[in-house]
């Protein structure tokens, strides 16, 4: 298993999950220039990270990589059994994070200095999606069931990006959740590498 990683990117969540799983892996750290270089474009046609080489082949999209790692280490119990409602919820939150939470954060990140109106629309979009997470966390410690899972890696990392863009002011439950996740030894190991 080899992870192609850039500091401060969506590959951090894969690094974190690998640390949670405790499985051996190699890391290749790429600069922005190296990501756009000819060699990395053979791994990801748009020059993005993360990419992993699982030994069976190359794989991209951080959400897909996290689901696959959870499947490959099924004994770690970070995703529900095949066909279960719990597993359906893992898929639900993986896509909710990717399509409802993160796009608002990215709009704020990209436009906060150049197009304030567009950044504000991103803030509103994030807040609308975050309300559902805040409500969920009011009665639950984790996103699915009673235990930490791959859904927490994905939603947790999306919310960590939200915290970075200072979007969590109205969401004390999410703030506490992010703090809880950041206190995990695996998270600390992953971000020490990064």
């Amino acid at each position: 298993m080899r992870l192609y990683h850039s500091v401060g990117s969506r590959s951090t969540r894969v690094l974190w999950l690998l640390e949670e799983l405790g499985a051996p892996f190699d890391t290749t750290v790429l600069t922005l220039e190296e990501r756009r270089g000819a060699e990395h474009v053979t791994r990801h046609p748009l020059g993005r990270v993360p990419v992993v080489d699982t030994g069976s082949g190359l794989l991209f999209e951080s959400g897909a990589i996290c689901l696959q790692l959870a499947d490959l280490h099924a004994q770690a119990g970070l995703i529900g059994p095949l066909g279960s409602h719990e597993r359906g919820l893992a898929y639900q939150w993986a896509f909710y994070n990717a399509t409802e939470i993160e796009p608002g954060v990215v709009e704020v990140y990209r436009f906060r200095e150049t197009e304030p109106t567009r950044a504000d629309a991103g803030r509103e979009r994030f807040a609308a999606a975050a309300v559902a997470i805040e409500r969920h966390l009011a009665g639950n410690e984790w996103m699915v069931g009673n235990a930490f899972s791959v859904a927490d890696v994905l939603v947790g990392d999306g919310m960590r990006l939200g915290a970075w863009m200072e979007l969590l002011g109205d969401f004390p439950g999410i703030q506490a959740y992010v703090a809880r996740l950041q206190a995990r030894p695996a998270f600390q190991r992953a971000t020490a590498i990064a």
Partner: protein
Amino acid sequence: MRLYHVPGTRSSRVHWLLEEIGKPYDLTVMTRDERHEPPHLARHPLGRVPVVHDGEGYVFESAGLCLHLAESNPEAGLLPAAGTHDRALVYQWVFYAMLEMEPGIVEKYIYGETDAARTAAGVESYRKAVQVIEDELAGKDYLVGGTFSVADLIVAGVAGFGGFLGMNDGFPNLAAYLERINARPALLRANAA
């Protein structure tokens, strides 16, 4: 199994998938306005469709639902076995369609008449992402494992929306792929319902 559905939205994907599976299911067809009323807000916090009740509880997100329902009906053969590289590639293309392809289409759909710069950026980002699919389809009928899977349902569904907005010129492999997939009886049944 019950699908909460509004025709002409992302719930059409799940409706199509249920027809591919071919087992009985219940369908609640809603209006766009009903999505934002209290009964549906209890099912989805933002008032969106699709939502499915899978027998144990509500689940939402169209792409996640397609994976969940295909996995719950393995005899339909729409999803490679968990832990295989083909399964991982299905995950990859489903996320890719939702994150690299669909946002550019939505930009054109929303801003096509009002914001030329935003529309152009959306079209450019979509076409860059679709070029990857075009290259991937060279010599292939389907994206993963030589057979129709959830990856094709999502990628073709999203690219079909792009085609509807006139964004697919100059992608011959994609055109042949969409023609092949659009002829599937399950899709025709879902569209006729």
